C-alpha cells in the first residue's frame, strides 16, 4: 500500500462517501434484481390471467411496478443501519456515511425509476401491438398510459424519498427508541407520502384528483415540491446520523 | 521460562549471559533479533530490546548496523571474570557459612575440594 495517512481530511471524506454510496447502491440492487424479476413475472402472469378471464383495459404493471418505492423504503430501513457499524469501525466518519447514503438514495431512485418507466414502456408497446387499449388514469405529472419521462421522474423521486425515509425511520428508532423514534417518524412519513402524492402516485392521489382535479399542481411545481421533500428527508437522515452513538454490542461484555 | 522474581528483561539478559558463558553462544555469533526473541517467547519486543540494550551497555553484545546483534569479542572472558568474582561472594561464601553453621570443619571442606573430581576439562587455577 502506497497511501499513507498524510491523506488530507477531504480525501478521507470522499473515500468514505463513495465507499458507502457504492456498497449501498450495489447491495440494494443485488436484492433489487430479485424484486424486478418477481414484479415482471407477476405483471406478465397477471396480464395473461386478466386477458383470459376478464378484459385488459388498463395497465396491469402500473400497480405492481409501482411498488418499487415501497421496496426501496424497506431497503432503506435495512441496508444503511446494517452498514453503519462497519463504516465507523472502518475509520470513516458519519458525515461521509450520510453523504454516501444520500448519493446512493438518488442513484437508486434514478435507476429504479428508470427500470419502472422501461417496464411501463414495454407494457404499453406490447398492449398496443396486441390491440388492447390501456386508458390513462392520469394525473398531473405521472400518467400510466406511457409518458416515459414523467413516469421515470415521478417514480424516481418517490423511490429516493422512500429510501431516505426508510433510513431516517430506522436510524431514528435505533437512536432514540420508541417514543422519540415515533415522534421523528411523523414528519418523515408526511414528507414521503406528501412527495409521492404531489407527484401523482400513491394511494391518495386518485382520490385527491377526483376531488380537486388532477391539474391543480403544475408538473414543474410538483417536481420542485418533491425535490424539496427529498432534500428535507436527506436533512433528517443527517440529523439522526450526524453524531449517532453506536450502541454497545449485545454480545460484548463491556 | 522467565518465571523468576526479576523483571523479564533482566531474566532475558541473564539467560543470554549464561549461554555465552557455557559456550552455547560463541563470540562473534549472531544472537536472535528482537523480533525473533519476541515471537519465539511471545514477549513484547520492547522487553527483548531492553535486555539487549543492557548487554550492549555491558559490552557483551554489539550491534552491527544492518546486520543485527552479535556476541562481542572478549565477551566470554569478561563474563567469566565477573562471574568468578560473583561466585566467591554469592555462592561460595554462603556455602562456607552454611558449613560453619553445621559444624563442618574447614579442613574437611578443603580435603573435599581437593579430592572431588573436576567436573569440566581444564584444571582450576
Amino acid at each position, binding site marked *: *500500500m502506497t*497511501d*499513507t*495517512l498524510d*491523506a*488530507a*481530511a*477531504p480525501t*478521507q*471524506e470522499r*473515500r*468514505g462517501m*463513495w*465507499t458507502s454510496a*457504492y*456498497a449501498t447502491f450495489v*447491495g440494494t440492487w*443485488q436484492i433489487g434484481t430479485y424484486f424486478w424479476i418477481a414484479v415482471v413475472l407477476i405483471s406478465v402472469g397477471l396480464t395473461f390471467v386478466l386477458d383470459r378471464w376478464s378484459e385488459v383495459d388498463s395497465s396491469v404493471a402500473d400497480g405492481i411496478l409501482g411498488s418499487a418505492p415501497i421496496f426501496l423504503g424497506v431497503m432503506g430501513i435495512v441496508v444503511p443501519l*446494517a*452498514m453503519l457499524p*462497519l*463504516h*465507523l*469501525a*472502518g*475509520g*470513516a*466518519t*458519519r*458525515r*461521509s456515511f450520510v453523504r454516501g447514503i444520500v448519493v446512493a438514495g438518488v442513484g437508486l431512485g434514478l435507476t429504479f425509476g428508470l427500470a419502472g418507466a422501461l417496464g411501463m414502456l414495454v407494457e404499453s408497446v406490447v398492449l398496443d401491438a396486441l390491440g388492447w387499449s390501456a386508458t390513462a388514469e392520469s394525473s398531473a405529472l405521472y400518467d400510466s398510459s406511457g409518458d416515459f419521462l414523467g413516469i421515470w421522474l415521478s417514480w424516481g423521486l418517490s423511490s429516493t424519498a422512500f429510501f431516505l425515509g426508510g433510513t431516517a425511520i430506522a436510524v431514528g428508532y435505533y437512536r432514540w427508541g420508541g417514543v422519540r423514534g415515533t415522534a421523528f417518524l411523523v414528519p418523515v412519513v408526511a414528507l414521503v407520502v406528501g412527495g409521492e402524492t404531489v407527484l401523482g402516485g400513491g394511494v391518495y392521489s386518485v382520490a385527491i384528483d377526483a376531488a380537486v382535479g388532477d391539474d391543480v399542481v403544475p408538473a414543474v411545481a410538483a417536481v420542485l415540491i418533491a425535490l424539496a421533500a427529498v432534500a428535507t428527508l436527506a436533512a433528517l437522515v443527517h440529523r439522526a446520523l*450526524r*453524531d449517532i*452513538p*453506536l450502541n*454497545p*454490542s*449485545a*454480545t*460484548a*461484555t*463491556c | 521460562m*522467565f*518465571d*523468576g*522474581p*526479576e*523483571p*523479564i528483561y533482566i531474566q532475558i539478559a541473564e539467560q543470554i549471559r549464561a549461554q555465552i558463558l557455557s559456550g552455547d553462544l560463541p563470540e562473534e555469533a549472531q544472537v536472535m533479533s*528482537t*523480533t525473533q526473541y*519476541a*515471537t519465539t517467547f*511471545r*514477549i*513484547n*519486543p*520492547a*522487553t527483548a530490546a531492553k535486555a539487549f540494550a543492557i548487554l550492549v551497555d555491558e559490552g557483551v553484545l554489539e550491534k552491527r548496523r544492518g546486520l543485527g546483534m552479535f556476541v562481542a569479542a572478549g565477551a566470554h572472558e569478561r563474563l567469566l571474570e565477573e562471574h568468578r568474582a560473583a561466585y566467591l561472594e554469592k555462592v561460595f561464601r*554462603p556455602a562456607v557459612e552454611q558449613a560453619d553453621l553445621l559444624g563442618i570443619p574447614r579442613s574437611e571442606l578443603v580435603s573435599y575440594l581437593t579430592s572431588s573430581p573436576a567436573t569440566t576439562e581444564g584444571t582450576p587455577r
Partner: protein
Amino acid sequence: MTTPYGAQLTDVTVRYGKGDPALDGATFAIRPGTVTGLLGRNGAGKSTALALLASLRRPTSGTVLVDGQDPFENAVVMAGVQLVRESGDVLRDTSVKETLGYYSELRPTWDTDLAESLLDQFEVSREQRPDRLSRGKQSALGCVIGLASRAPLTIFDETYLGMDAPSRYAFYDALLEDYTAHPRTVVVSSHLIDEVERLFEDVVVLHHGKTLLAETADTVRDRAVSLVGPTSAVTKLADGRRTLSTRSLGGTTQITLEGVLEPAELSLARDAGVEVARVSLQDLFIHLTQETVR
C-alpha cells in the same frame, strides 16, 4: 510510513441512561508505539473506553484525545483507528469478501496481501457469510481485520475469545510479527491475562469505571511478590508489609505481599529456604480487583 497514535482519556464519564455510569471519571494514557493491555472485570468499562477511542460515541463528560486531537468525526484521526469488537463489525449476510472489500476501500493503510495470507492461515472462507461462520472463525475474521488495517492505533476488544488455543497463539504470533515489522499502537483487552501479559509493555486496569492503575507492565509486576516456605520464616519476612493473600498448609505458608523485596531481604529469604516468585499479572489483577469489591 504512518506514525503510531497515542491516546489520552481525562476525567471521562459515560452514562447509558440510568444507573451506574459505565465510565466514572477515568483517566489514563496510551503511549504511542506500545502494546497496552486494558484489563478489568465484566462491566468495568473497558469496551466503553475503547468505543470512545474509536469515535463510536462521545463521552458524557471529560476529554478524549487520539493523536492529540478530539477523534469524534475527525476524518484523519478516525482513519487511523481500528477497533475490532467481539461482535465483529461486518456485513453479516453477505460474503466475508464483501466486508474485507469495504475495509480495504475505506482504509488508507489496509494491507490486502496480509489480509489474504491471514485468511488462509486462520482458514476463514472468503465466500462464507460472517453470520454462518463458527464463533472461532468469526473471531479470527476480526483478528484479520485488525492486523490488516495497519491502523496507527489498532484495538482488539475481547476479539479472540471464540478462538481455540492454537488459533489464539497463532494470533499472538501474527500480532507480534506484524507489530515489530510495522510499529503501531496496539491496545488489547482480554480476560485471558495469563496468555497475553508478556505481550504488554503497558497495562491499564479499570474498575467500576475508574482507573485502578495505568503504568508499565514491569512496574505492575513489581507491585507484589509471592513467598513460599516455612511459616515462621515467611511471616517474619511479611512482618510490617501489606499482605494481599495468605495460604497455609501444615508448616508451609504462601503469602502474597505488596511491593518488592530488597536484595538484603531476598538473601534473607533464600537463607531461610523461602522461595521468592513473581506474582502473575492474572493473580495480581484478581487481588487488586477483589479487595475493592463493593
